[in-house]
């Protein structure tokens, strides 16, 4: 239960740059889920998806770091950078575990990790802009 909050227009982790990885991640999750249900090991598509997702997350991170370099500050710096580091580590984690497990459960791992990534992106947005209360 993570409430989606509106983030200020000056947030570097808002808009298309956050929407793209969220949508990508969910697409890979659905694809991997279908594979897992069909007893299929992670296929090429899942690995390509993870790679593209990683690129999108790196773009997000670079833009966030550029904003920080430009003088903007996240509301909760510690948590923000914690989430940022975690976020870019997720696709590689899924990749490694999926390679180790060439069964339907490998696909299930890709699905699980790709469901977590959007949550982390949303948390990232929330920690940039600390809401009152």
């Amino acid at each position: 239960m993570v409430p989606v909050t509106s983030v200020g227009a000056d947030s570097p982790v808002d808009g298309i740059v956050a929407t793209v990885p969220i949508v990508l991640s969910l697409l890979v999750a659905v694809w991997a889920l279908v594979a897992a249900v069909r007893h299929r090991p992670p296929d090429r598509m899942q690995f390509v998806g993870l790679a593209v997702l990683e690129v999108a997350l790196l773009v997000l991170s670079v833009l966030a770091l550029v904003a920080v370099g430009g003088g903007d500050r996240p509301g909760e710096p510690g948590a923000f950078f914690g989430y940022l580091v975690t976020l870019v580590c997720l696709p590689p984690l899924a990749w490694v575990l999926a390679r180790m497990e060439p069964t339907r459960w490998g696909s299930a791992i890709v699905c699980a990790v790709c469901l977590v990534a959007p949550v982390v992106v949303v948390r990232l947005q929330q920690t940039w802009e600390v809401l009152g209360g």
Partner: protein
Amino acid sequence: MVETKSARQRTNSGPGRLLIAVYLLFAIAATSRAGLQLATKFDEAPVAYLLSGVAALIYIVAAVGLARAGHTGRRVALACCSVELVGVVAVGILSLVDKDLFPDETVWSQFGSGYGYIPLVLPVLGLIWLWRTRRAPA
């Protein structure tokens, strides 16, 4: 496509690997959150933050136990899953009864509702998995 139905399947393959992956995610999430809370605002809610720290530690140890498989690994995982289950239920009840005890959220508050109740489901799945991979009776 062969799914081992063997009762002696190791804890660190097949569904177990998925379980380890989720435990890893929780270990990362709980550790970084607890570390941050303990380091920056320990005085605000010491009980809650210490509990977060303990929960984080248990997730790490459980993941290692499942991943190492073997006799010791299984016992470690069994202990961790049991403590987790007791912990999440106890803290869940306490956080409902006495809100002042945990002024800030922990992984286990409200039965882990902040984490989609996964903290409640995870130890149950862990115990089921350990049961299903137990040594076949001689």
